[in-house]
């Protein structure tokens, strides 16, 4: 299926999903759906640099928080319309990805991974000390009273925005995956030295991948302040984002755009249940255990199982 067709179809599905949600009156649905959509974007974004290119980013929370805090900053400064804030957060996070990539992607993937981990800690410290956006005390964001498009509640708008962003992330991921850029990234992932010697401009492609990945992760965070109405650093930099954006693609399957989607929907839903019935600490433990279990026993994830099953069927008895 060509990417243009896929994009059109996906957009139609998005519209349908948004329209259908008008009939849902249960508030919990929007809360759960918002979180799962957030994870779909994060997991898909992470996978562009992680699964496609082979570079692990441990600091997803940093990029997510950058998106969120750009919104907070703009809210305090000028209160532009939501799409502007989304675009701004995406661009800033993308620049951060480019910058970190430029500093660390010339070295082994290990150093990039460590740098992202350290980055999250440093940015957290920075935001904690930045009073303009609330610092440790946090910031209050008031949802506008007048909801555009005649939607009943503001959370419906946020939900719609998230659906559209999720679709955008999936379309971008699929476009990259199926293009010649995607093949170049896969070559880098499989053997970077061989890729260089086959003519692949590895540094340029890695920077591209890091920028797009960072930008989309930031995009996931841009509506967060409006959703919660109150943002403080430990919420934006929550470890759950870091571990989930790795666990979901890993469990779903890292070589295709479908993997992170499957992982996010499955794992996200499980977490919603556990969080409500047990506790958030147990929830994180389960995610951690699943991560380790899958990476040791089923490294190709659920998509890997599906592929293997299809392969066996094709070969016949």
């Amino acid at each position, binding site marked *: 299926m060509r990417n243009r067709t896929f994009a059109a179809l996906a957009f139609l599905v998005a519209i349908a999903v948004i329209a259908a949600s008008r009939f849902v009156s249960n508030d919990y649905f929007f809360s759960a759906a918002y979180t799962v959509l957030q994870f779909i974007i994060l997991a898909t974004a992470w996978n562009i640099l992680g699964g496609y290119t082979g570079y*692990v980013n441990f600091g997803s929370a940093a990029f997510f928080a950058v998106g969120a805090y750009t919104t907070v900053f703009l809210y305090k400064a000028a209160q532009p319309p939501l799409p502007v804030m989304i675009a701004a957060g995406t661009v800033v996070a993308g620049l951060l990805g480019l910058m970190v990539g430029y500093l660390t992607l010339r070295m082994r993937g290990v150093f990039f991974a*460590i740098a992202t981990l*350290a980055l999250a800690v440093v940015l957290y410290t920075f935001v904690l000390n930045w009073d303009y956006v609330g610092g440790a005390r946090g910031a209050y964001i008031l949802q506008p009273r007048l909801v555009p498009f005649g939607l009943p509640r503001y959370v419906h708008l946020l939900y719609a925005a998230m659906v559209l962003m999720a679709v955008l992330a999936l379309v971008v991921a699929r476009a990259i995956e199926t293009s010649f850029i995607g093949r170049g990234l896969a070559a880098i992932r499989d053997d970077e030295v061989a890729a260089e010697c086959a003519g692949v401009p590895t540094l340029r492609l890695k920077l591209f991948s890091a920028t797009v990945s960072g930008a989309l992760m930031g995009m996931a965070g841009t509506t967060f302040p409006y959703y919660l109405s109150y943002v403080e650093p430990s919420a934006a930099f929550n*470890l759950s984002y870091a*571990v989930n954006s790795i666990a979901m693609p*890993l469990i779903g399957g890292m070589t295709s755009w479908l993997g992170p989607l499957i992982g996010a929907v499955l794992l996200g839903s499980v977490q919603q249940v556990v969080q409500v019935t047990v506790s958030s600490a147990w929830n994180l433990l389960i995610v951690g255990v699943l991560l*380790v279990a899958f990476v*040791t026993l089923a490294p190709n994830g659920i998509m890997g199982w599906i592929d293997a099953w299809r392969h066996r069927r094709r070969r016949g008895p």
Partner: protein
Amino acid sequence: MEFPTALVLNAIVAGLLLGGFYAAVSVGISISFGMLDVVNIAHPAFIILGSYVAYSFNDRMGVDPIVVSIVLSPLFFAFGLLLYRIYYQCFEKRGQESLRGLAFFFGILFITEVVLVLVFGVDYRLVGTAYSSTTLHLGAVDFPLRLAVPFVVAVTMVVCVQLYLSRTFFGRAVLAVAQDQLALRLMGVNPIRVKEFAFALSIATAGVAGALLIVIQPVQPAIGREYIGLVFAVCVLGGMGSIWGTLLGALILGLAESFTSTFFGPSWAPAVSFGILLAALAFKPSGLLGR
């Protein structure tokens, strides 16, 4: 304006004492990452685990935490053996070290932290020792024992590790295994056993370092992540796989943090290690004493 001599001297002393401790924290990574090429980013979590183990014994039985950690180091050693075996079977053998190995250790880091939260909660834990509140004074300079005692233990441990690696047969096998596994095999030494042993040693040092940590400052499960930048900064700065380099790098880092803390405030400390790590990677990735 009068030169703040006392302030500077104290910053230097605090920095050096802290640096010694950082060396103990990082020597494990110097071995596992610098020599064995295993990216054990869960190392700081094991340090925190060591802190809590020492805390538990101190809380229940009033035993000195550092003594506890040394007595219990064989346990940490055994745990390291087990962990390496799993890592080797699932990743190194299959040639999947890079991405999957990283994710594996990240998962372990995460699980360790969450389990500690479940068992101990998120409150800070502190340990009281006989010397915690004593401070020696040499003129204008203060030597708080809660920094000085861990410093002495830390440096002793690092020196012992270095002596072991450079003087004993098995120790030198560890130094050799990174460079030439085939030669080791031809000498009748199984490289896997050597790597296993070295990794276990690195975890044992983590256990002791944890006890030192909780003597120096209060501990809570999330602190581990703050140390990741630090340990890798020290390891890269000092030159991967060089123990003396680790000591030197740690002292430098300790001084940098101490000065930053004294003149700019303590909350900027994590930024210092990150900045040094980036600078080291950008300008001299082989480190100060590296090969």
